[in-house]
């Protein structure tokens, strides 16, 4: 508890120090405080997870509508540890990222919000009172909004910020409804919240949409691909890696108030999971903007998390403890894993962006030679997000798969199991397509435009290297990680309906043995190859392009052409618009091809709805003439009306 | 016996998918004929191997459905010189994937239906529904008139299968009635297609040379 308080204190101090004016700004107080605070938070979270000691604290003073009641149990601790870990590395990275070409003032402001965001995210996970939770939630939304619009002078950034702000507040509105339903007597303390029967189902739906908007579940995800690319990369890493996970945390916390779940909640979660997963990965494939691609992959991975949690809910609703255990463990572990590899990927994208000055994949290429550390780290992240062994993504997806296969072999909830397996298989294959594209086009081959790229400073490469090592370490220590998330999973499956963890331990032991075998074999063959080639002639030459001796970088496959077959296969869903200006005649002058894939939900649903709404809002222009005396008249009229109403009542 | 039935069922379902995914008219006609043979076998199974009236009737009906009607359709195709390509409204891959959905739907629909399966396998009802849906799909989602005839034939197959599923006494009686209707339908459609084609041949510029004769 002390560590946690210390952590919040550091963040607060950091925010204040960074907001100080003038010459104090030369000293990097913001990053330093963020690092210290994150370290303390990480310590607190890990200590709670490893020792199993939960704590609970109610301050003597009270807020207008509730108490300052905080606490840390296994579920909170898991998220606290993840947030702190990613926050720590993102702060170090951000120090380097903003260090070069932004002014000290701007950087300090950014880190002021960064510290506030960190503190509010931790507070969201710690709050044990509905009012405190909502306050922290709102601070989190606002501080991240200010971080998103950091580069507000660039075109499109402000628009992205507004979309984010609207989306998150619509979500918050539903959360308000949820808490009102849960706290029947107006008392919002978590220990006294509860609902049953039809109310429980309504609460579940409100939580699903409210928290799902933050998390990025498929129909509510539209802000994600707008806001994440617009933000500076360390902020994208923090937002995509951990901030959207607070939505998952909120959903799980809400579930814990509701007692025994209904089976259809599980079905809904599985349905949303498949939809988000496939939707996310398909739209990611169609993107040309590296960071937008990564943002869509967050939608995909949130879908995978929802699949795991859905099976967990289903398992505990239908009385299949092994399914429940595997599903919740898989979902929670994927929360951790996605936090790690997605922040790694965003940092890698940030370095690439830093070096080339563009986010367009089709203008990059060949960065591996100039940025070896970034490239290697991005490769690890890309392989991890494709769930390839022996990295961490495989472990969590394996657990979700195992939950689904348990469904099938127990002949319980077979349709959900089938949906999960088919969905994950399709997602896996398409994610591999997407990340070979991202990695291959950006880092491999020849540079597509003139490059002046060089490796980023150590403050940027070391966090990436640390995250990449973590990916490998988690991949090799599956039993330990399953044990780490187990207490949190136990909190979610109420009562004694929980499996003895023997089955999980056996499976995860098998996974890590196989992963270790794989890693060992890779080393073995690499050494063997080295030995075979020793003393032989190893020459360098041109790429053997089927005999063509003057290849140019423009002849390479681009990101668009690489993804074209798959995009074509799903054209009904994607609705990619292509403007082609094909070469004509014997000696064609110029030709061009342009393709653009706008979000389906944005194009078909949110865009038109927003259009209607703003059309309605335009009608109110009549009232808003811009003359002060008119406004004063309105105020007087309003007061008069209230006065009369009061008299009548 | 049971496993033999199962394999016949699976073949039936696969034939439906062949109908959904086929791009050539010939393949479709062939599939419909094959389907009729399988359904004939299914109708015979409960009656054992001893020769009887049922054998004769079912044999005759199967002969009509597997040889005569496809023959009529082929003749119509030949005489109207219709192209082999199917011209679908919805692509073949999409059709096959939709077929999976239709199959799942028919399983879901058949579950609460609780049809007395009359000693036949429990799958018979969903497979019947699926066959009927396939026929409907062919009628709706393909452009050519001749595929509509084929769709009718597939639906007729499924109705007969329903008779088998309900273990109707003298199911061939039902069959005979249905068959008569379909026969008339095929006949009428054949004539209509022929006429439509003849009318429109004159407009088709590719065939203006025919006028020389």
């Amino acid at each position, binding site marked *: 508890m002390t560590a946690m308080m210390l952590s919040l204190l550091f963040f607060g101090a950091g925010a204040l120090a960074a907001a100080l004016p003038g010459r104090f700004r030369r000293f990097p107080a913001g990053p330093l405080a963020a690092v210290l605070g994150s370290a303390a938070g990480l310590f607190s979270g890990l200590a709670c997870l490893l020792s199993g000691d939960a704590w609970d604290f109610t301050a003597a003073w009270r807020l207008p509508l509730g108490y300052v009641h905080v606490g840390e149990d296994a579920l909170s601790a898991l998220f606290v540890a993840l947030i702190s870990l990613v926050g720590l590395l993102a702060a170090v990275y951000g120090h380097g990222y903003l260090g070069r070409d932004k002014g000290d003032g701007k950087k300090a402001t950014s880190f002021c919000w960064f510290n506030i965001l960190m503190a509010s995210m931790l507070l969201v996970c710690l709050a044990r009172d509905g009012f405190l939770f909502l306050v922290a939630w709102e601070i989190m939304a606002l501080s991240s909004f200010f971080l998103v619009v950091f580069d507000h002078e660039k075109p499109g950034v402000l628009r992205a910020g507004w979309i984010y702000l609207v989306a998150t507040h619509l979500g918050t509105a539903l959360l308000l409804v949820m808490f009102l339903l849960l706290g029947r007597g107006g008392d919002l303390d978590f220990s006294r919240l509860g609902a049953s029967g039809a109310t429980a189902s309504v609460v579940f739906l409100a939580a699903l949409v409210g928290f799902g908007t933050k998390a990025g579940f498929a129909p509510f995800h539209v802000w994600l691909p707008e806001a994440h690319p617009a933000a500076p990369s360390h902020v994208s890493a923090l937002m995509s890696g951990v901030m959207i996970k607070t939505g998952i945390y909120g959903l799980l916390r809400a579930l814990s108030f509701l007692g025994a779940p209904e089976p259809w909640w599980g079905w809904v979660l599985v349905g949303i999971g498949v939809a988000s997963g496939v939707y996310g990965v398909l739209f990611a494939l169609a993107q040309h903007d590296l960071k937008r691609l990564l943002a869509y992959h967050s939608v995909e991975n949130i879908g995978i998390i929802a699949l795991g949690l859905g099976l967990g809910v289903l398992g505990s609703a239908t009385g299949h403890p092994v399914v429940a255990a595997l599903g919740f463990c898989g979902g929670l572990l994927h929360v951790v894993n996605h936090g790690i590899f997605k922040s790694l990927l965003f940092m890698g994208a940030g370095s690439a962006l830093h070096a080339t000055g563009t986010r367009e994949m089709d203008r990059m290429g060949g960065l*591996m*030679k100039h940025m070896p550390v970034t*490239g290697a780290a991005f*490769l690890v992240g890309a392989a991890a997000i494709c*769930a*390839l*062994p022996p990295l961490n993504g495989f472990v969590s997806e*394996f657990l979700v798969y*195992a939950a689904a*296969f348990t469904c*099938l*072999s127990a*002949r319980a909830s077979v349709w959900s199991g*089938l949906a999960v*397996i*088919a969905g994950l*298989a*399709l997602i*896996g*294959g398409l994610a*591999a*397509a997407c990340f070979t594209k991202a990695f*291959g*086009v950006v880092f*491999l*081959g*020849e540079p597509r435009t003139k490059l002046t790229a060089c490796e980023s400073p150590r403050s940027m490469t070391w966090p990436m290297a640390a995250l990449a090592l973590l990916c490998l370490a988690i991949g090799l220590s599956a039993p330990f990680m399953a044990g780490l998330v187990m207490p949190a999973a136990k909190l979610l499956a109420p009562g004694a309906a929980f499996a003895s963890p023997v089955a999980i331990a*056996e499976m995860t032991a*098998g996974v890590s043995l*196989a992963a270790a*075998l*794989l890693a060992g*074999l*890779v080393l*073995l*063959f*690499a050494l063997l190859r080295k030995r075979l080639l020793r003393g032989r002639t190893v*020459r*360098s*030459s041109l*790429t*053997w*392009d089927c005999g063509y001796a003057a290849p140019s*970088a423009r002849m*390479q*496959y681009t990101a668009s052409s*690489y993804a074209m*077959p*798959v995009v074509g296969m799903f054209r009904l869903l994607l609705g990619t618009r292509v403007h082609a200006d094909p070469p004509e005649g014997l000696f064609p002058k110029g030709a061009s091809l342009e393709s653009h894939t706008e979000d389906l939900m944005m194009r078909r649903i949110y865009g038109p709805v927003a259009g209607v709404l703003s059309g309605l809002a335009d009608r109110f222009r009549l009232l808003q003439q811009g003359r002060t005396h008119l406004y004063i008249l309105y105020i007087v009229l309003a007061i008069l009306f209230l006065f009369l109403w009061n008299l009548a009542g | 016996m049971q*496993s033999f039935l199962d*394999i016949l069922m699976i073949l039936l*379902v*696969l034939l439906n*998918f062949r109908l959904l995914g086929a791009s050539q008219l010939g393949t479709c006609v062939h599939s419909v004929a094959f389907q009729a043979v399988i359904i004939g076998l299914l109708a015979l199974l409960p009656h054992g191997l001893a020769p009887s009236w049922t054998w004769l009737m079912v044999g005759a009906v199967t002969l009509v459905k597997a040889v005569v009607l496809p023959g009529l359709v082929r003749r119509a195709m030949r005489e109207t010189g219709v192209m082999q390509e199917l011209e679908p409204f919805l692509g*073949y*891959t999409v059709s*096959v994937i939709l077929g999976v959905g239709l*199959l*799942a739907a028919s*399983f879901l629909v058949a579950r609460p239906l609780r049809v007395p399966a009359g000693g036949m396998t429990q799958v018979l009802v969903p497979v019947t529904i699926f066959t009927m849906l396939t026929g409907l799909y062919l009628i709706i989602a393909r452009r050519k008139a001749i595929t509509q005839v084929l769709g009718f034939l597939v639906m007729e197959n499924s109705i007969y299968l329903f008779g088998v599923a309900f273990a109707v006494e003298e199911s061939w009686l039902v069959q005979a009635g249905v068959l008569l209707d379909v026969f008339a339908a095929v006949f009428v459609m054949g004539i209509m297609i022929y006429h439509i084609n003849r009318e429109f041949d004159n407009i088709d510029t590719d065939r203006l040379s025919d006028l020389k004769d």
Partner: protein
Amino acid sequence: MIFPMLHVFLALIASPLLLSVINRTKAFFGGRTGAPILQPYLDIAKLLRKGTVYSRTTTWIFRAAPSVELASVMAALAVTPLGAIPALLPFQGDLVFLAYSLGLMRFFTVSAALDTGSAFCGMGASREVQFSALAEVALLVGLAAAACLFRVFSLTDICRQAWAAGPVSWEGGGTLLLVAASFLVVLLAENSRIPVDDPNTHLELTMIHEVMILDHGGPDLAFIEYAAALKFWILGSLLVSLALPLRFADPLPDLAAGLIGLFFLAVTVGVIESVMARLKLVRVPQLLVVAGVLSFLALFDVMR
């Protein structure tokens, strides 16, 4: 323990032999004598003794890829059973590991191809990821059907139960037949055989696998060829285990039956390659979707 090790040993020794069985079958159909039965071994031995040439465009990814490919396919071999012979390292859920370690292999093949910066390699890579995404669905759903049928989900248990059921009883025979048909398509697609890809030519624009490895040479190419042979063995073992249940209740004849099954499979693939032409490229996804549909049907067949 001795028989699983024997199976792995045999796979390591004999997998290139399957490729030459295919080639001999094709030669027989084409009225030729065909290459010597040991030709794949000779090729690999020759390549292992050579030096190599690297493109100046490439990075260490290109150099590391063959080793990773061989390692991942061997890790997959460790969880592959052959009929009643258990795998070396069986655990519940190892079927997911098998699918994803083959995924790792593909990831590096494709990355190495993109590393060369050649348009040909990019084309092959693009097609590979498209087709494999569909094939993976067919593979995993097919395995799910088998898992649902036998109520276990480790490859070793599934295959053991399939063989325990035996060929006569036909318990779930329809399901297994559907899965086997689906896996045959997956096997052909994943091993880049006709009708999906043609392993014989390198330069046509319709090539997939061969065009991706154009730039490799020397020991690297030997690794890749050997890994390809092992991959055929692995997917073939799965297919044989599910489609050819010949149980003898004694490990030695079981192993022999499995090997005969693999030989028979190689001949079958040879016959398919001889009598079929490669599909039009746009038709390949349709074929793979059909394989997926067969897997789904198998699952429906269990669940009804």
